């Protein structure tokens, strides 16, 4: 069955430190992969997406993600986090049909 796993429910990082959020997926075909961010009390905004090509994807707000087919992973990274990055982050995988399969989300907490 298709699934997305975000193993960390919460992550706490000091402001200025680097960040990596993990995402593993199970999908039979070549996936489309997404990371979305949800600031507190708001809707979801796309950070970045991978459809094909270069396995390192650049997104908005200084985020990037690396697609590793052999590990079925699509981890999100940022070299230096800012207090405004505190939010919930969702990984999703989709294919040729209409739907996306969503991870349960990782809540990022920033320590001053």
């Amino acid at each position, binding site marked *: 069955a298709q699934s997305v796993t975000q193993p960390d*429910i919460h992550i706490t990082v000091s402001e200025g430190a680097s960040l990596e959020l993990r995402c593993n997926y199970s999908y039979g075909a070549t996936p*489309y992969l*997404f990371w*979305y961010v949800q600031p507190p009390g*708001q*809707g*979801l*905004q*796309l950070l970045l*997406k991978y*459809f094909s090509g270069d396995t390192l994807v650049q997104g908005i707000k200084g985020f990037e993600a690396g697609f590793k087919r052999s590990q079925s992973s699509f981890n999100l990274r940022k070299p230096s986090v800012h207090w405004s990055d505190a939010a919930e982050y*969702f990984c999703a995988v*989709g294919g040729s049909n*209409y*739907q*996306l399969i*969503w*991870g*349960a*989300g990782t809540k990022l907490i920033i320590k001053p």
Partner: protein
Amino acid sequence: DVKVTQSSRYLVKRTGEKVFLECVQDMDHENMFWYRQDPGLGLRLIYFSYDVKMKEKGDIPEGYSVSREKKERFSLILESASTNQTSMYLCASRERGEQFFGPGTRLTVL
């Protein structure tokens, strides 16, 4: 920029009431979605519509119905609201695989 709007940010209803949640998108997208979001459960798909008057059940359609009479508008209906439908409801439209979200409606059923 794509804009997806939802009729209310916050809504409080009583058990047994009929509830309408409205969603409008301005980019002529064919596909639209309704999700509910609960802590620790991520986003769960209630219904989606791939075109006007077309709808498909998602993972948790029980207790909900939808209406898509015009391309830009996708409505979620709770026929008889119950307390276990207290949640955040998110609407999205889709183009080229990417989904665009509205701000969400936080519904409380008392």
